[in-house]
């Protein structure tokens, strides 16, 4: 497969994401500059982590108006696979490709640590290589990861199986202390109704090689890759 990693001014996980796709997953992967209007024939798009436009205004709020986002939206509307990681998730929320918004972490701290994720839906294009009930250990690094959605939206995404990852403890239990940023429903990752757009706050690209401390994130990329 050919992947495009979108680069905004302030993206800082673009290199790591390209490395994971190219060197770990052995896929074709290219950078896509946010000012362009050309997806260059990619089969999948990753919006990487970082601080696009310095998080000015709101995280992801300016990046959503980047020229390439028009193509990304059309690509998603046609059923193309889009993965938003951390700031990429925030951009997808601002774009309206996923429901809800991000608030500052409940403890008002930038959180940079490993978390445990329960995979709530293993029949998606992003999680199909993960066995049901599996708990993944993947790091987070964000200030604004406290997921918010109005109650009716929360009911809808829960009922529709759109919650893909939830913050849990090492035993897989959804406790209050495991929900480190205070997200509604302890939601760490969310998919759209059509099943082709996933946003997640944790960084799978930072957990795709044993050398980095965890290989659990690679399961997400492996799910994404055609075989």
């Amino acid at each position, binding site marked *: 497969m050919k992947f495009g990693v979108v680069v905004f001014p302030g993206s800082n996980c673009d290199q790591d994401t390209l490395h994971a796709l190219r060197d770990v997953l052995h896929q074709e992967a290219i950078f896509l500059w946010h000012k362009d209007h050309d997806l260059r024939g990619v089969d999948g798009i990753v919006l990487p982590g970082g601080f696009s436009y310095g998080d000015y205004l709101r995280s992801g*709020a300016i990046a959503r*108006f980047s020229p390439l986002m028009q193509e990304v939206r059309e690509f998603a509307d046609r059923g193309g696979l889009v993965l938003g990681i951390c700031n990429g998730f925030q951009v997808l929320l601002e774009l309206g490709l996923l429901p*809800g*918004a991000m*608030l*500052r972490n*409940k*403890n*008002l701290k930038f959180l940079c640590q490993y978390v445990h994720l329960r995979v709530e839906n293993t029949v998606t294009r992003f999680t199909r290589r993960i066995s049901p009930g599996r708990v993944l250990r993947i790091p987070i690094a964000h200030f604004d990861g406290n997921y918010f959605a*109005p109650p009716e939206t929360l009911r809808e995404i829960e009922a529709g199986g759109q919650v893909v990852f939830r913050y849990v403890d090492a035993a897989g239990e959804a406790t209050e202390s495991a929900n480190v940023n205070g997200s509604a429903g302890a939601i760490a990752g969310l998919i759209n109704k059509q099943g082709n757009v996933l946003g997640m706050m944790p960084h799978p690209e930072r957990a795709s090689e044993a050398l980095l401390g965890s290989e659990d994130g690679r399961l997400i990329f492996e799910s994404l890759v055609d075989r």
Partner: protein
Amino acid sequence: MRVRILVSFKESVLDPQGQTVKNALLTLGYGFVRDVRQGKVFELALEGISEPEARRSIPELANKVLANPIIEKFTWEILEDEKKV
């Protein structure tokens, strides 16, 4: 013409920064502070636009860009001192 737009969290959204400021004020002895909501202020200098046009365009751009309607609300005003000029 200059306009001021005030963006703040909806009442239904918890504002942890406002809560922290409130706690600080209470600690300092300002016990009369019941609640604090923190927001953002934007001041826009406009030109080439009439007041009726501004009254249409400002809410539009505030909803589209300055505020995220899922979590935030806004109020806005034309700055009076400018109006007199």
